[in-house]
């Protein structure tokens, strides 16, 4: 990889030789902001999955909690998805990005206190947004349902987080870049760009009529299929080689995958017969079909890196999380490509299939990768022993079971629903009846995901507890030694 060029940067700049900073010191500099990012991620994961469980029950028992306006399905569903993306996924992404920039760049995090503050502001934004939706203030756009005042808070917090992350990248002492670094750097700029553009054009100064549909689809696909995908794949490309101590299989495959995602990922989520001039959906499906290229590149690269050491996937639960994430990435993106085919789009658009696709991407891929990364990073930045393998494995099993049950239920349920919906001789009532078994199964999956969220929160807080305990013991020791 890149260790051979260590120290080159100081030669090139001709200034004083760079100090060599130990990994331990780098990790410690990240402690407070990362602790805020990761613990809030754990909280919002639990929050979102609890809402997910309620929603999943409501879909087959519609009168469950129907009396309370704050808990009606139409509000809880956007609150669930948006708190997942902005409350869990984004902070997890920021935390992992910062740490990787520090570690790969061999530099300390600058002004961590300031970042921790920005992280808290971000969380206030998410809280205000989720409460806003439940109070009836949702903006009405998919994946962008937070009311404008919440989006403003998020944006301000992001400006600080983004600038700090880019600065951290700039002060790196290691010139040669590892693919994960430019993946994550690009993602930082990408999010700033899509989030501000979409908010401006939809919420603050809305474009007219169906142009909103285009902007919303553009935002959703850039958010899920580009931003989260680039972050997740970047993290996968760092951790798989790291955990099995082998080089990344191919630099070029990661390059092609990156450009493929960047060029073709932002075009999805438009129904082939949306009320638009025909060139727009046509362009959208053509580009979405080309996502096959990056999918294949990611698959080959992961497989190539792992081959020779598949054993570790089973013995190391952190690696299991990362590899399951990579596997789900392939499923989610393949589902996306499939639904761009005209005949399949006809059957699958408007069904649970699309919800299933988002689930595979958000939970199966992103959350899985984030869990793996956090289990690796958190003990190091807190400065305590690693989490017990047994506890990680327990979380892993429950989580994977939940993802698969919920994912299969929605995917298959959506196919059945779509086939029935498109057959006018099946009355609507029967269409609904056909989905009920799948909806019941999805509730089991949702419940498992809530338990997984609990286990994650427990594992993470036991780390913090160990840290406080350790500090306390040291204090006592010092006190005993003094007199």
């Amino acid at each position: 990889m890149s260790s051979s060029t260590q120290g080159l940067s100081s030669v090139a700049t001709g200034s004083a030789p760079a100090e060599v900073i130990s990994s331990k010191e780098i990790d410690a500099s990240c402690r407070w902001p990362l602790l805020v990012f990761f613990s809030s991620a754990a909280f919002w994961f639990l929050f979102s999955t609890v809402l997910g469980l309620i929603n999943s029950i409501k879909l087959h028992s519609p009168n469950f909690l129907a009396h309370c306006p704050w808990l009606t399905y139409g509000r809880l569903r956007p609150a669930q998805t948006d708190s997942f993306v902005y409350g869990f996924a984004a902070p997890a992404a920021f935390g992992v990005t910062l740490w990787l920039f520090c570690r790969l760049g061999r530099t300390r995090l600058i002004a961590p206190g300031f970042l921790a503050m920005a992280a808290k502001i971000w969380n206030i934004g998410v809280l205000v947004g989720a409460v806003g939706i439940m109070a009836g203030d949702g903006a009405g756009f998919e994946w962008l349902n937070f009311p404008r005042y919440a989006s403003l808070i998020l944006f301000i917090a992001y400006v600080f987080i983004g600038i700090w992350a880019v600065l951290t990248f700039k002060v790196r002492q290691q010139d040669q870049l590892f693919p994960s670094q430019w993946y994550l750097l690009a993602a930082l700029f990408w999010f700033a760009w899509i989030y501000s553009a979409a908010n401006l054009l939809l919420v603050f100064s809305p474009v007219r009529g169906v142009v909103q549909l285009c902007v919303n689809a553009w935002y959703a696909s850039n958010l899920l299929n580009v931003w989260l995908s680039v972050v997740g794949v970047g993290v996968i490309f760092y951790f798989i080689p790291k955990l099995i101590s082998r080089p990344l299989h191919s630099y070029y495959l990661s390059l092609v995958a990156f450009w493929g995602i960047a060029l073709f990922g932002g075009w999805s989520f438009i129904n082939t017969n949306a009320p638009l001039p025909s060139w727009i959906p046509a362009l959208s499906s053509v580009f979405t079909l080309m996502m096959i290229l990056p999918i294949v590149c990611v698959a080959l690269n992961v497989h190539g890196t792992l081959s020779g050491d598949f054993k570790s996937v089973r013995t190391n639960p952190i690696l299991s999380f990362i590899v399951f994430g990579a596997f789900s990435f392939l499923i989610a993106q393949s589902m996306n490509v499939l639904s761009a085919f005209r005949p399949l789009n006809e059957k699958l658009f408007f069904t649970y299939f699309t919800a299933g696709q988002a689930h595979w991407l958000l939970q199966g891929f992103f959350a899985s990768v984030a869990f793996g990364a956090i289990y690796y990073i958190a003990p190091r930045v807190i400065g305590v022993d690693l989490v017990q393998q047994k506890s990680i494995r327990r979380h892993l099993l429950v989580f994977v079971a939940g993802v698969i049950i919920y994912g299969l239920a929605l995917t298959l349920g959506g196919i059945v629903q779509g086939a029935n919906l498109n057959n006018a001789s099946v009355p609507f009532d029967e269409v609904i009846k056909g989905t009920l078994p799948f909806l019941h199964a999805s509730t089991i999956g949702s419940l498992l995901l809530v338990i997984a969220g609990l286990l994650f929160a427990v594992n993470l807080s036991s780390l913090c507890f160990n840290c406080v305990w350790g500090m306390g013991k040291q204090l006592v020791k010092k006190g005993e030694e003094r007199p």
Partner: protein
Amino acid sequence: MSLSWLGLVLGPQLQLGSQAPEMNDKTGQLYPQARAGTAQQGREVYRANGCFSCHSQQVRPQGFGADIERGWGVRRTVAADYLFDSPLMVGSQRIGPDLANIGLRQPDANQLLVHLYNPQITMATGQKSNMPSYPYLFEKRKLGRTISPDALKFPSGFAPEAGYEIVPRVEARVLAEYLRSLHAEVPLIELPSITPGTNAVAETNAPAAAPTNAAQSSATNSPAK
């Protein structure tokens, strides 16, 4: 880097961003027209309660899906139908039926309100509605000397216990007005109204090769018995 922005944001904006109502030669009126104030308020209730999480508002052309056959519209919906809609809530889920033309299907406000109060009431016997009820949009009142003029009229067997009436709150009333305002049936030049059963295909979205498209659509259309 931002190719998709050119294609999905700038391009559409350039083409459609300045779209304006046009004189419709069939009806002799401008189309589309802005909604009346109450319906517009109802739209806000629709947004606030996230009805779009379960209902789409877009009709696909005949030959693509069964939207027209299901009676969800007489023609596909086009860009002009949504000119005044902001935020646009076309929806991407059909957990419930498409509502682009609910105003044509169910013009009766009382029926719509009873359905919102308790969807089960309007279902045929033996059928189960999977839509949540919205009791919080209504008020259960002790009956005064007279019945309130806008109290819900229930089919027999569903009325509340004697001495009480169910009165829609403002939110429910404007929401029903909004639902009644949902109709996209005005025939358009490029899109003559399709009556179910014919095979006319919408021009706006037809692929370049028209003959193959006609063949395709009749192929997908025929088996619907």
